[in-house]
């Protein structure tokens, strides 16, 4: 009985999640005439024209490329600085550690809207405006604290005796960290990377504020097209569908770690 009722609950919930997404895909495969003139549950005049438009026009597809570039940069930077810091927090007491940890966390809680304008001025003044690295660095403000938090949770689960054994066996800190410690928390690194990717990929406000042309993200491209060319629903929907693809791929690769990762990393 219980199994059946939970199957119903899950079906209803998943339908709730998927129907709006289905509708977006449905739209993306219709012509604009069909969208505005008739109401159909699936495309009557099936077309890939909307996707062709996006994939052949550099002002569209460069948006994806730019987004992927700064997201990748952000994940790499965040993890590189977060790993040693998380190790320090998980293994040592040091002066001011608790305050520092809390301060880091508060940055995760900072509203992007508060930082948008100052960032704009800061990066303009150092000549980084409209570069990928500027957006990547700005996103670090949220992702580094989160990565430190997640990794610290995973590292706490690794017994300290492993460190000590490695030092006794004559490993240097660097070699121990890369050769022994990192493989042990591989799933934690995966989860942290997943979250960094997620927050950097979905963020709009900062990426839009910090780039105009060269590093313009797909999210920004989409919002501007809406206001500029009126309502080209088909292309807009197709662009939306294409933004789902990297996320779906990432989820597929980490699917076995999602639940485990959530649990171990406390997040």
């Amino acid at each position, binding site marked *: 009985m219980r199994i059946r009722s939970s199957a119903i609950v899950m079906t209803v919930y998943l339908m709730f999640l998927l129907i709006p997404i289905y509708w977006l895909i449905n739209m993306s495969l219709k012509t604009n005439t069909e969208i505005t003139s008739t109401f159909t549950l699936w495309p009557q005049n099936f077309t890939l024209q909307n996707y062709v438009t996006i994939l052949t026009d550099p002002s569209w597809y460069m948006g994806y490329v730019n987004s992927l570039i700064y997201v990748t940069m952000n994940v790499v930077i965040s993890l590189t600085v977060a790993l040693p810091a998380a190790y320090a927090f998980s293994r040592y*007491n040091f002066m001011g550690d608790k305050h520092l940890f809390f301060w880091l966390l508060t940055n995760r809680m900072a509203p992007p809207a*508060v930082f948008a304008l100052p960032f704009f001025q800061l990066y303009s003044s150092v000549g980084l405006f409209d570069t990928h690295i500027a957006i990547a660095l700005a996103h670090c403000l949220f992702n580094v604290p989160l990565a430190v938090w997640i990794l610290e949770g995973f590292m706490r689960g690794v017994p300290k005796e492993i460190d000590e054994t490695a030092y006794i066996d004559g490993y240097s800190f660097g070699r121990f960290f890369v050769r022994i410690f990192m493989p042990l928390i591989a799933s934690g690194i995966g989860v942290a990377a997943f979250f960094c990717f997620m927050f950097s990929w979905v963020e709009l406000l900062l990426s839009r504020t910090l780039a105009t042309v060269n590093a313009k993200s797909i999210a920004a491209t989409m919002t501007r097209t809406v206001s500029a060319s009126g309502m080209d629903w088909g292309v807009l929907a197709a662009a939306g569908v294409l933004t789902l693809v990297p996320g779906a791929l990432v989820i597929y690769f980490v699917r076995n770690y999602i639940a485990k990762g959530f649990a171990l990393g406390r997040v």
Partner: protein
Amino acid sequence: MEKTQNNKAWFLVLPVLVLVAFSAILPLMTVVNYAFNDTFGNNEFFWAGLDWFEDQITSDRLHDALGRQILFSLIILAIEVPLGIFIALNMPKSGFWASFCLVLMALPLLIPFNVVGTIWQIFGRVDIGLLGHTLAALGIDYNYTNDPLDAWITVVIMDVWHWTSLVALLCYAGLQSIPQAYYQAAKIDQATRWSVFRYIELPKMKGVLLIAVLLRFMDSFMIYTEPFVLTGGGPGNSTTFLSIDLAKMATGQFDLGPAAAFSIMYFLVILLISWVFYTAMTNLDREENR
């Protein structure tokens, strides 16, 4: 775990410190500078003291936005947290269907915020959206671009759609950590379904639930993109939340002084709430490790 005292650990934290200081402290100083000064351009500043703060604290516009913000955050927490727990309890425990549900549930979390807005913008429209069209066909007068209540309902449903899975996934992770023996013991003790939830599942979910509430509260308090795309803050100002108001003020009207004062107060409120949560969480950790 016993930690050793070692101040050299500072060197390991240094990169993070430099990076976050560059990204957080410098901009924050700019904000503070604006908040206490008035400017007419050309980098000339006049000390304005607490004027901007007084302006903002007494401004009806801020009060309204704050009121809407708090109401919104409370509503979505009241829906998403119980619903997330409920979904987590109903998820398959293992096997193919568990991964299947996990993957589909994680999907909304990885959609760019503006696309979430776009999805619901299209979905809710009366002329081309399934939701709007269906409601209209059922004779319900629904239009989220004109009617403030409809706009609110749409924004709330959109947020529930977007984020309930996060709460559910966190709770699911908490539930997964409960050994099978607990459920068996409960059966033998003749515990009711409610007792199992109350005394076994809920205590195990307490930690993750606190994180879920913290994340959802903070993120909903900062919500910007989704309602911006969906309603643009309207109709009127009915869905203008704090961040939308702030962005309008700063980048739309270039009222930098008031915007900066607004930012600082906004940030302080969030800081206060984070601190309360953080203290609660570390206390919980300590209790568990005792």
